[in-house]
């Protein structure tokens, strides 16, 4: 069974719809420039902003004035609407529809604007309900009239959107969904601009991926979504491209750095090729992750060389067009890859001039080229590396049929702070230096459950969390509010993404298998369990470590109390180890 893509929607720095994005790509016109909409002290940093104010987006979407919408939601809704319009599906009712969105920053743009006020008065307190990533997906569904759709939010930092598409394809294959709208959306925020700045990986000039003089990335924002259907369900002339293969693997190396040999990236590309039944020489274009940081580009180059050897197809990074749109980059670049295939051109790797011997040589743009298959790479913090293969004609024949039965091998949980002391059994003090209570709890429950079941390393790690790394995120935000945008702590930011939890476990276990994080409010664990069961039933994994981990802080508990909501537990970590029943 193949998966057809029947609709595309996009909004990013180089255009607010498909025709304008295509024109910019062909004319080699970058959208990176001086900050205009984001309110930050760091005006010296170029950014790839969507050229629309929130008010303009609200009126494009016919929304009532006065509600504090996150830019993440607004951009996402614009892209979803475009994609649905192009797919032109007559009836959604009676069909199983899923909206799968990748985001990490979520509603942070709204929270950071009101954070101080929220602590002082009740006036803006209600915006807390727009903070978590899952709420942005629910809002997009609501705005786009997808009321009956199942909403799922994936948060694996910069690979979130490709992982959304992967999950969507799997759900179509197993029949869990008839129509999937998948992609990602991420608004620029002061929070992550400052975060990346603490990591000293932001270039003050326009980024130059793979160039010897590259000095980091530029942040961007945007959203892109694709409508996917089983090819049998899509009318023949409607398929714009096919998803023929994909791979999700973990580098399991470091929270913010890629390994030298690009192991995670290598495994992800190899798996995608195997699923598509394609050889490296069948790939005619690679849309690289290519962020422009000193660390990413040689690591990705090493991985590409390992897969493609001496016959590397044209490669480009399109990050110098859009900036790094983080969680949205995977779907934005999936759309670029499809446009390249449809229109027969290789987008330029803008800014590249000087060869770095440790990097591949990117393309400066090719016209009139026949592209049958594209590899699109998307890598995230924690080594959450994913690759997807898009094709002009369908290749995949694999049926994701349920062949196996799921068994619960062991369970564990922690709900009290006292238990965290036991972490010493598994972790050296020097390793614990950065571990907050959520990291300690998730590590402890995970290690204990594996020990109980006498399993060294699971095949896959799936994490669920409603609020993610609440404590470190709150400290980082509080720091910005109280002390301004200087001298902030990188340690806090590097542990602010939701996938910090799952990737830390992978790093500890050196587990290169499938690794994903779901964040969908109270339904987070449900999303994770469905994925885990799917992996086991379809034979993709024999053992899956599923964890649901959340924490609270005194400030957050205070917010909940003032809103008349139940007070959350300070720590709540539960894990289930699933296995295949023989």
């Amino acid at each position: 069974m193949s998966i057809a893509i029947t609709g595309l929607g996009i909004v990013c720095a180089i255009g607010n719809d498909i025709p304008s994005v295509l024109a910019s790509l062909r004319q080699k016109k970058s959208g990176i420039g001086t900050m205009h909409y984001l309110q930050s002290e760091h005006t010296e940093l170029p950014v790839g902003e969507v050229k629309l104010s929130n008010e303009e987006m609200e009126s494009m979407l016919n929304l009532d004035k006065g509600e504090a919408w996150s830019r993440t939601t607004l951009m996402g809704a614009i892209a979803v609407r475009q994609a649905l319009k192009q797919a032109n599906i007559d009836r959604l009712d009676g069909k199983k529809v899923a909206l799968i969105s990748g985001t990490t920053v979520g509603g942070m743009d709204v929270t950071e604007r009101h954070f101080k006020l929220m602590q002082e008065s009740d006036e803006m307190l209600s915006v807390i309900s727009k903070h978590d990533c899952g709420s942005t997906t629910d809002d997009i569904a609501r705005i786009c009239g997808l009321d009956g759709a199942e909403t799922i939010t994936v948060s694996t930092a910069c690979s979130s959107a490709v992982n959304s598409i992967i999950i969507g394809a799997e759900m179509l294959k197993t029949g869990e969904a008839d129509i999937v709208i998948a992609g990602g959306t991420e608004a620029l925020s002061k929070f992550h601009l400052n975060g990346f700045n603490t990591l000293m990986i932001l270039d003050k000039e326009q980024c130059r991926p793979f160039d010897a003089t590259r000095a980091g990335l530029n942040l961007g924002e945007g959203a892109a979504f694709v409508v996917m259907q089983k090819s049998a369900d899509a009318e023949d002339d409607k398929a714009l491209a096919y998803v023929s293969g994909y791979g999700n693997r973990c580098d399991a190396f470091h929270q913010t750095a890629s390994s030298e040999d690009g192991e995670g990236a290598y495994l992800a590309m190899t798996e995608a090729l195997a699923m598509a039944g394609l050889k490296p020489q069948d790939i005619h274009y690679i849309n690289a992750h290519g962020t422009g940081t000193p660390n990413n580009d040689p690591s990705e180059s090493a991985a590409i060389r390992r897969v493609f050897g001496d016959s590397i197809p044209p490669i480009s990074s399109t990050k110098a067009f859009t900036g790094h749109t983080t969680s949205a980059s995977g779907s934005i670049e999936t759309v670029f890859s499809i446009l390249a295939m449809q229109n027969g051109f290789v987008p330029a790797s803008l800014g590249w001039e000087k060869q770095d011997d440790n990097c591949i040589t990117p393309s400066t743009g090719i016209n009139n080229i026949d592209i049958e298959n594209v590899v699109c790479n998307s890598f995230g913090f924690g080594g959450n590396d994913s690759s997807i293969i898009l094709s002009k004609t369908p290749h995949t024949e694999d049926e994701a049929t349920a062949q196996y039965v799921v068994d619960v091998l062991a369970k564990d949980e922690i709900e009290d702070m006292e238990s965290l002391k036991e972490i010493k059994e598994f972790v050296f003090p020097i390793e614990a230096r950065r571990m907050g209570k959520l990291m300690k709890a998730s590590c402890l429950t995970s290690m204990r459950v594996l020990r109980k079941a006498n399993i060294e390393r699971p095949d896959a790690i799936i994490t669920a969390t409603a609020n993610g790394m609440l404590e470190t995120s709150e400290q980082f935000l509080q720091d910005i509010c109280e002390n301004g945008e200087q001298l902030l702590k990188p340690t806090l930011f590097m542990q602010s993404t939701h996938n910090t939890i799952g990737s830390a476990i992978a790093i500890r276990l050196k587990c290169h298998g499938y690794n994903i994080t779901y964040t969908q409010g109270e339904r987070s664990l449900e999303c994770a369990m469905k994925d885990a069961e799917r992996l086991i039933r379809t034979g993709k994994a024999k053992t899956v470590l599923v964890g649901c981990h959340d924490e609270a802080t005194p400030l957050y508990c205070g917010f909940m109390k003032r809103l008349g909501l139940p007070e959350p537990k300070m720590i709540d970590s539960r894990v289930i180890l699933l296995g295949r029943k023989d």
Partner: protein
Amino acid sequence: MEELILTLKKQIIEVLNLEEMTPEEIETDAPLFGTGLGLDSIDALELIVLLEKEYGIRLANPAEGKDIFKSVATIAEYVHKNRTK
């Protein structure tokens, strides 16, 4: 110099959350990264923030830290020469 070394050790323990360590446990000449204390690239970034915050020394490129952060002794030497506060 001795005083600066002790202060630096205390500050390193604080910014890197080395909760269970005392200044005496950090050897002045021992490597901080890799085989020594086992610090990594993020710790180096924290040390860059520390230099700016406490001593008014600004490193524009994280690669500059490589030689400076070899040991507490090398940090002390660099701070002594370059501090602006």
